[in-house]
């Protein structure tokens, strides 16, 4: 059973960056952007996504960078004290090197810095948090950044109106005496093809044929695009997420219903409603930002905290459970308490702010 606990560590702050450019889903074109079976109004009602943020210029690292700069400034952290940076994304700047290395330089962090990429999606923020918490909980490293999100893809493709771009920054620091984090993790690689970009890795190298459009469930897609088996993912989400939350409570001996907020990854409103119903949660305790930003992959949990909870919990004792689940298939749940946390206002990033120094 993959349960973990790290004490003496806490989240000092969370920030999120999104492109300034907003796209409304009420102007989607039937038969082009969405299936001809749906009107734009029906699409919005069904998915819950009214609008989303998209840029054809900004990479995930640009959004994470903007969020990190704002967060470091508001925390008044000395950059020379930040000794670890974990970047969680499936839209890295380059195949090589790891984007975490580029961000170390762009953020002007010390060269005495542990930096790594984690290639996970919707479960990624929870996994990344466990990596960073494990590094910081001994006090050997006292301040660290977790940068997570997804944005511009690695090939030109038609935008899926369910998804939006976002990059987040979570600041984690050594805090002796703090109860820290309790985690549950799980993986089911038999579902590897439930969400998959088939070409471009070494199993199926990129060829001219990778760009040929084929019919996939009624949509024309090329093989560098992400192919999703919606029903399989739905079935996985509604069964796995509630079980993981329950297991965490059982393992560590708490009643999850005593928690103040439940932040789930948001992929589809129907799936999230079903999860809330199964766990018998009060919907007021389950904030969502999907209507505003779409599915933002590993950014969804911190983006929900920034966009929906800012002003509501920063300076009072608050118990939070977060659960991410998706591509892998992979899932993770974390429980923690905050009583003093910095949440900067949402950072809106302009295309001109893209990295110009690490471009070849």
């Amino acid at each position, binding site marked *: 059973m993959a349960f973990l606990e790290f004490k003496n560590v806490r989240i000092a702050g969370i920030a999120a960056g999104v492109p300034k450019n907003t796209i409304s889903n009420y102007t989607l074109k039937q038969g082009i952007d969405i299936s001809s079976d749906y009107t734009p109004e029906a699409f919005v009602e069904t998915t819950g996504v009214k609008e989303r943020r998209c840029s054809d210029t900004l990479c995930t690292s640009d959004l994470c960078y903007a969020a990190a700069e704002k967060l470091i400034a508001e925390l008044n952290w000395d950059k020379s004290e930040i000794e670890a940076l974990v970047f969680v994304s499936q839209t890295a700047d380059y195949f090589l090197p790891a984007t975490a290395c580029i961000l170390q330089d762009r953020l002007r962090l010390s060269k005495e810095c542990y930096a790594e990429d984690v290639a996970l999606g919707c479960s990624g923020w929870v996994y990344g948090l466990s990596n960073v918490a494990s590094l910081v909980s001994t006090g050997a490293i006292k301040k660290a950044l977790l940068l997570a999100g997804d944005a511009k893809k690695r090939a030109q493709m038609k935008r899926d109106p369910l998804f939006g771009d976002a990059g987040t920054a979570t600041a984690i620091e050594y805090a002796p005496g703090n109860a820290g984090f309790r985690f549950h993790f799980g993986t089911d690689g038999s579902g590897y093809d439930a969400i998959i970009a088939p070409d471009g890795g070494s199993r199926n190298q990129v060829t001219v044929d990778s760009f040929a459009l084929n019919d996939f469930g009624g949509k024309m897609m090329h093989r560098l695009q992400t192919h999703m088996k919606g*029903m399989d993912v*739905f*079935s996985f989400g*509604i069964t796995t997420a509630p079980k993981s939350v329950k297991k965490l409570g059982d393992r560590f001996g708490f009643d999850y219903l005593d928690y103040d907020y439940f932040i789930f990854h948001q992929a589809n409103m*129907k*799936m999230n409603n079903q999860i809330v119903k199964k766990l018998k949660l009060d919907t007021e305790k389950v904030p969502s930002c999907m209507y505003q930003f779409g599915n933002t992959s590993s950014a969804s949990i911190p983006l929900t905290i920034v966009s929906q909870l800012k002003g509501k919990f920063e300076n009072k004792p608050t118990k939070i459970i977060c659960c991410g689940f998706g591509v892998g298939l992979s899932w993770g749940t974390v429980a923690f308490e905050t009583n003093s946390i910095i949440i900067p206002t949402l950072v809106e990033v302009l295309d001109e702010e893209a990295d110009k120094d690490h471009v070849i």
Partner: protein
Amino acid sequence: MKTLEEFVALFAEQFDDTDASEITAATEFKDLDEWSSLIALSIIAMADEEFDVALKGADVRDASTVEDLYKVICGKM
């Protein structure tokens, strides 16, 4: 264990505009006017809640009648 009749009734509940009397064990459900990917998700959620069975997309695609799907669920219990 719920009977086939109970499953048919639960199946029919997932539709808004289709009268329950139109749905029987032998109904080829993908031919119904109201059938959509969204109803499929409702059916998957119902199988999870009522039978504690996780249906996959292929299970729904490969079944043609309501009874076919009931058999798939029984096989997974």
